[in-house]
C-alpha cells in the first residue's frame, strides 16, 4: 500500500527534492560561462555537430566556457529566449530566425552590436561587408547592427531530372516563368483514371514555411508582402499577392497538379525523394538531405517568375539578448565572431545545406573542392543576386499566422483567394494596431 507509512512518504518527498535542488555554482575566478541557444531546423543529427563545434571553440578559448543549449524549432527558440529574458536569465547568444530580429528590437530585447564592432577597431561597413548584401536587410535596423548572419537560405525549385526526361522535358533548361512551370507540372503529373499517382509539383504550407512561400510567390509576382522600412504594415490584400495565391490555388484545384491541402515541409521533401512529386519548392537548407537520399538525378533551379525574379532570404542570425553582464557580452561576441568566420561558416554550410553568409567562405580550399564536386550548392548563392530581406514586422509570428491560417483554408478548398486575403489583411491590421498607435498614428 502506497500510503501505509506517512513517514516514508515524507522522507521520499524530501529526498527527491534534495536530489533535484542543484545549488547554482558560485561565481568565482575561472572561465566566463556562456549559453548559446540553438534550434535544429534541418536534421536532428546536427545537434551533435553543434556540440562538436562548441567543443572546438572551448578548446581554443580557455577563458570562455560555452554551452550549446538545444531549444526546439525556430518558434520555440523565440518563446524560450523571451521567457528567459523576462525571467532575468537571458542566454548569452541565440541563433535566431532572421525575421524575428525587428520584433525583438521593437521590444528592446536585443543588444545593439555597434559598440562591440567599434571596440574591435573596425567600422560597421567593414564588418557587414564580409556578408552577402542580401542578408544585411534583416541584420540592420535603423542603421545599427543587431544580428550577425550565420545560416541562411533562399527557396529553390527542385526537379526530378529523370522524370522530366521521361516526360520529354529538358532538365537542363528548367522552367523560368510561372507559365512554363504550370506546363511542366501538367506534363509531369501522372494519373490513373481519377487517381493521381504522381504530382507535378508540391509547395509546402505549414506554420513558418507557408508565410515564407507566400512571400516568395508574391515577390516573383512583383509584390512586397510588407513595408521594408517600417514594422507596422503588411500588404496582404494586394493584386500581387492575390495573383500569387490564385496561381497556387489553381495548381491545386483547377489543374490538379499539386496535392490538395496544406502540406508540411517534411512531407513535401519525403514525397519528392520517393518520386511521388516530380518538382518541389523548398529551402536550400534541404539540399544536403536531398543529395544524401535521392536515388535519381535531380536539378535545382531559381524560383520561376511571373513579373520579376525575386526571392526572400531565410535562415538565422546570431544575436545577443539585452541585459547581459559586460563579461558575458564580450565572451558571446568572441563566440559569434568565431562561428561566423569563413572556415567555420563554410564547415557548417557543408554540414547543413544552408549557404555560408560570409563571402570569404567560398574562397576556402575545402569549399572550392566541395563546390567542384557539388555544383548544385552554387544555385542558392547565385540566386542571392535577386534576393531581398525576409518579412519582419512588429509581432512577426502572429502577423504571419494571420495570413497562413487563411492560405490553409484556400488550399483546403474552403475559401476563395480574394476573401481569404481580405480576412488576412483585416486580422493582421488588428495585430499591428498597438504598434501603429505608438508610431505612425501618434500625432502631435
Amino acid at each position: 500500500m502506497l500510503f501505509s507509512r506517512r513517514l516514508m512518504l515524507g522522507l521520499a518527498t524530501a529526498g527527491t527534492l534534495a536530489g533535484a535542488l542543484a545549488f547554482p555554482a558560485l561565481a568565482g575566478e575561472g572561465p566566463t560561462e556562456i549559453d548559446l541557444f540553438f534550434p535544429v531546423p534541418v536534421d536532428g543529427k546536427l545537434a551533435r555537430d553543434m556540440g562538436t563545434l562548441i567543443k572546438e571553440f572551448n578548446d581554443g578559448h580557455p577563458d570562455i566556457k560555452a554551452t550549446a543549449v538545444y531549444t526546439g524549432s525556430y518558434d520555440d527558440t523565440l518563446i524560450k529566449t523571451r521567457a528567459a529574458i523576462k525571467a532575468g536569465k537571458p542566454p548569452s547568444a541565440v541563433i535566431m530566425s532572421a525575421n524575428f530580429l525587428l520584433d525583438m528590437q521593437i521590444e528592446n530585447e536585443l543588444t545593439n552590436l555597434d559598440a562591440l564592432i567599434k571596440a574591435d577597431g573596425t567600422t560597421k561597413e567593414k564588418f557587414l561587408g564580409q556578408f552577402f548584401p542580401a542578408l544585411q536587410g534583416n541584420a540592420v535596423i535603423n542603421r545599427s547592427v543587431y544580428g550577425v548572419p550565420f545560416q541562411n537560405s533562399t527557396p529553390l525549385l527542385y526537379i526530378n531530372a529523370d522524370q522530366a526526361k521521361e516526360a520529354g522535358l529538358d532538365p537542363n533548361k528548367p522552367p523560368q516563368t510561372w507559365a512554363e512551370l504550370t506546363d511542366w507540372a501538367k506534363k509531369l503529373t501522372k494519373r490513373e483514371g481519377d487517381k493521381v499517382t504522381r504530382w507535378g509539383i508540391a509547395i509546402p504550407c505549414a506554420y513558418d514555411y507557408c508565410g515564407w512561400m507566400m512571400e516568395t510567390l508574391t515577390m516573383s509576382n512583383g509584390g512586397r508582402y510588407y513595408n521594408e522600412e517600417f514594422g507596422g504594415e503588411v500588404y496582404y490584400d494586394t493584386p500581387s499577392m492575390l495573383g500569387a495565391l490564385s496561381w497556387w490555388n489553381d495548381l491545386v484545384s483547377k489543374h490538379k497538379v499539386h496535392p490538395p491541402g496544406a502540406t508540411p515541409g517534411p512531407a513535401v521533401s519525403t514525397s519528392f525523394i520517393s518520386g511521388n512529386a516530380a518538382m518541389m519548392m523548398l529551402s536550400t537548407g534541404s539540399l544536403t538531405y536531398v543529395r544524401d537520399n535521392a536515388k535519381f538525378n535531380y536539378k535545382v533551379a531559381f524560383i520561376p517568375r511571373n513579373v520579376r525574379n525575386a526571392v526572400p532570404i531565410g535562415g538565422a542570425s546570431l544575436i545577443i539578448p539585452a541585459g547581459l553582464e559586460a563579461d558575458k557580452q564580450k565572451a558571446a561576441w568572441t563566440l559569434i565572431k568565431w562561428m561566423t568566420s569563413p572556415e567555420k561558416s563554410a564547415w557548417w554550410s557543408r554540414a547543413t545545406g544552408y549557404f555560408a553568409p560570409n563571402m570569404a567562405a567560398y574562397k576556402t580550399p575545402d569549399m572550392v573542392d566541395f563546390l567542384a564536386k557539388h555544383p548544385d550548392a552554387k544555385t542558392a548563392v547565385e540566386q542571392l543576386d535577386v534576393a531581398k530581406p525576409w518579412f519582419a514586422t512588429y509581432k512577426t509570428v502572429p502577423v504571419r499566422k494571420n495570413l497562413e491560417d487563411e492560405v490553409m483554408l484556400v488550399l483546403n478548398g474552403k475559401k476563395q483567394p480574394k476573401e481569404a486575403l481580405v480576412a488576412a489583411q483585416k486580422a493582421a491590421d488588428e495585430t499591428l494596431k498597438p504598434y501603429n498607435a505608438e508610431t505612425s498614428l501618434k500625432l502631435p
Partner: protein
Amino acid sequence: MTLFNRLFRDVPLATRGEITPKLGFLLTVLLAIVWLIPFLWMVVAALRPASDGINTMAVLMPSLKPTFDNIRDAWEIGDFPRYTLNTTIICTGILLVQFVTITLAGFAFARLAFVGKTLIFYLFLMQLMLVPVLLIVPNLSLVAQLGLYDTLAGVMMPFFASAFGTFLMRQAFEAIPTELEDAALIDGASLFQRIRHIYVPLSIPSFSAFAIISVTSHWNDFLWPLMVINSPDKRPLTVGLSVFTKTAEGTQAWGTIAAGTLMVIAPLLVTFLIFQKRFISSFVTSGIK
C-alpha cells in the same frame, strides 16, 4: 468461442452461455487491435533499415532485414539513461508532493466548514480554465527568483498543487459515509489519523486514477521543461527526443523518431504492464468493503 471461455475462466457461470458478453468481448478485442496498430508500426519502423527507402515507411509488414541502426542512432543522440532518470525524478517528485497537497486540500473542501469555502473552491477550479502557455512567463520569473532556474525542482514547482486533483479528491472524500469518521472520532482518532486511516485507504482508486493522469501528462510535457532547463544533463526525455521531430528544412527521419519514441514510452509501458492488475482492480473497487 472456446477461446472466449479459456480467456474468461472467471466470468460468472451464469453468463457463460450467453451471447451478449461474447459480443462485448469481441468488440474489446477489435478495439485493442485498432489501438495496437500505431504501436506495432512504431516497432516495425524502428527496426526498418533506411535502405528500404521512404516508400515502405508506412508499411506494417516488418522488414526482412531488421536492423538496430535507428535505435543506435536515437541512443547516440543524447544520454537516454540520464534523460529517463530526469523524467522519472520530475514525475515522481511532482506526484508525491501532489498526493500530500490534494489529500489535505480535498479534505478541507469536502469536510471542513470555513468562511468563503465555495468561493475559494471555485477560484481553485478556475485554474483548470487557464491555458498553461499563458503561465509560462510568470511561472518562469518566479522560478528564477527562487533560484531554481535550470533545476529539476524548477520544472516540478508549478505543479505541486493540482486543481484537478483537489477536485477529484473532494469528490472521493464526499462519497465516504460520515458514519465511518464518526466511529473513528468516538475511538479518539485525531483529524490526521482520520484522514490517514479512513479517507485515504477508501480513496485508493481515485489516487490511482490521478497518479496515471499526473504521471502521463508530466512524462509527455515538452514546452515547460524546455523553458526551465538549459543544462544538457538535466533534460527530460521529451526535450532530448525533440531534436529529431522539430526539423522543418530536412525531413522526418521516421525510423529514428520511432526508435526514440519507443525508448521514451518503454518505461511507462513496462510500469503499466507490471501494475496492470493493480490499476484495473483499483478502478473497480467499491468504497465499503
